[in-house]
């Protein structure tokens, strides 16, 4: 097997759009394939790497800036790095993309109403009651990616379906080895070889 090529899978989307859930599912798959994986998650890094930061625009930018730095180091050392952050601003994501290089943007597309319904962490309720300021989608804008490598629709795909979409795209983008099989049945493969032989191509 060729040496693992590092990349950063950057999950962006509203709170409750399924970023962490998908990152964990993809992490499991990548580990099964024997890849080195690290997962950087908003909730985790805010307890360590960026615990001194709040949620003002400036602090949110700083949060992403530090995470980007770490992701860059991991990526250039051949690690599959999974980042899940709301990262609502296009410009900030563009900076991370430029900094990291092998950057694959995954847009977790999910209507705000669905995220509010889910409200896994009870944050929307608080935000809607005015208890949290600058809450993305409620009192702060979310700028959807214009040109993401991957779009998953978490309101109408299962976790397995979205995970499969992400893994297939990673293969197409050259970050994962293609899995063998299912392209041709044995019979089909023989027929294809015969065709090539008839044309003098093999």
């Amino acid at each position: 097997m060729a040496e693992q090529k590092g990349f950063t899978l950057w999950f962006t989307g509203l709170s409750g759009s399924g970023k962490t859930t998908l990152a964990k599912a993809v992490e499991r798959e990548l580990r099964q394939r024997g890849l080195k994986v690290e997962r950087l998650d908003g909730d985790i890094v805010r307890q360590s790497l960026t615990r001194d930061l709040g949620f003002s625009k400036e602090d949110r930018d700083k949060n992403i800036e530090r995470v980007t730095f770490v992701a860059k180091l991991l990526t250039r050392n051949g690690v599959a790095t999974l980042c899940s952050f709301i990262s609502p601003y296009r410009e900030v994501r563009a900076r991370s993309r430029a900094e990291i290089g092998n950057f694959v943007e995954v847009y977790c597309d999910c209507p705000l109403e669905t995220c509010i319904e889910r409200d896994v962490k009870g944050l929307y309720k608080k935000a809607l009651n005015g208890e949290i300021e600058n809450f993305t989608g409620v009192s702060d804008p979310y700028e959807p990616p214009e040109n993401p490598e991957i779009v998953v629709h978490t309101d109408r795909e299962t976790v397995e379906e979205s995970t499969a979409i992400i893994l297939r795209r990673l293969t197409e983008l050259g970050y994962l080895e293609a899995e063998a099989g299912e392209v041709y049945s044995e019979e089909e493969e023989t027929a294809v070889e015969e065709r090539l032989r008839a044309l003098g191509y093999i």
Partner: protein
Amino acid sequence: MSLFSRFRAKRKPRVVVIGLDGTPYTFVRRALELGRMPNFARMLGEGAFRRMNSVHPCVSSVAWSCYMTGKNPAKHGIYGFIDRKPGTYDTTIPTSRAMRSETLWEILSRAGKRVIVMNVPVTYPPRQVNGVLIGGFLSPTIEKAVYPPGEAETLKRLKYIIDADPWAARQSKDKALAEVNAALESRERTLLHYMDNEEWDFLQCHVMETDRLYHFLWKQMATDDSVYAPRFWQVIAQIDALLGEVYDRLDENTTMIVMSDHGFCTLKYEVYINHWLARRGWLVLPEERPQRLQLADVGPRSLAYSLDPGRIFINLRGREPAGQVAPGAEYEALRDEIASAAMEELRDPETGVPMIAHVFRREELYHGPLLDQAADLILAPVDGYDLKGAMGKETLTFQGDELVGMHTYDDAMLWIRGQSIAVESFSVTDVMPTVLHLMGVPVPGDVDGRVLL
């Protein structure tokens, strides 16, 4: 088409690419002079028509992969119609799964463009696009060839044919023509269906039938055979009519491109590189031979072997399971020895002229993360000598009458309507960034090709 989409279609830049596999620039010039392509003749002056290079080796799988990715093979991973499974002597047929790069239509899809892609080599199994993709000639069935799967019904209704049957075509020239004509009609029918009934920003139709026609009847055309040359030209007339049909449907916001991936010439000899390697003692074949020798039958004492077309691999220690040649000085010395011997010894059995124009070391042709999968030496033949990887052939050369045409490197063609081409010398790899430019979509930074306009 709805009123809204008509309005949209009028304002946005669109591109349609017609790929005429293997159609040489010099041949089209001649056909124009002979008045055999009246439609293309009236289109010609509206754009730039230029000769274009293919890639090495100049086979459709590699050339179209370079086209659709805008990259050299060490970035997309497709080096031929057949390849080794890494770390084994097993061979495999590379498909779209092995292509380690984004394609033109995937980048366009990502930018929100709607694409229709039909029959381009190495697009099976179909990868997801924003639109419709019909896999190329190595698709096993219509059901498996299409994305989204629902399109299979449409194709069946249109009596779509994936490819002419080459074994039938080998039986007689009449059968070859019947196969080519049937496939061509189905292609045109399907293309026009999608042009007229679907919304699209980018549409690519690949005509494989030209390549098939040339493989089986090029010589008959070139020698003006009294029976088959006229029938060859009938197919060309059909293709010219297809170009006219497409052209007449387009508005001023749509750029039409007609291109090929390599040229063609009359085949003088098939040349069996493994026969030569065996004669020189570099390849050791087993005493007892199965009916069809494969790479897996190569004897463990072999130092080198070849796969189609003209790709020579060193049996390298640490890479091949029974590697014999040490990396470093020993490897380099053997490469040098084989390269100079190939130039010196591989000669036309009648005239004695060299059959090899150039021997490339892989790093001279390719650059990128997948370089280690490339052949160690790539032989570029003189036109007319078709380098084959078949094992266990009793002679160095062979002259048959079934396959009578072969590919050439420097005679592909490119026509772009309404544009002039600013670059002197260019290759199929340069077309993809040019299409992105025409459609106003940024060219990714790792693309090798240049915008030609």
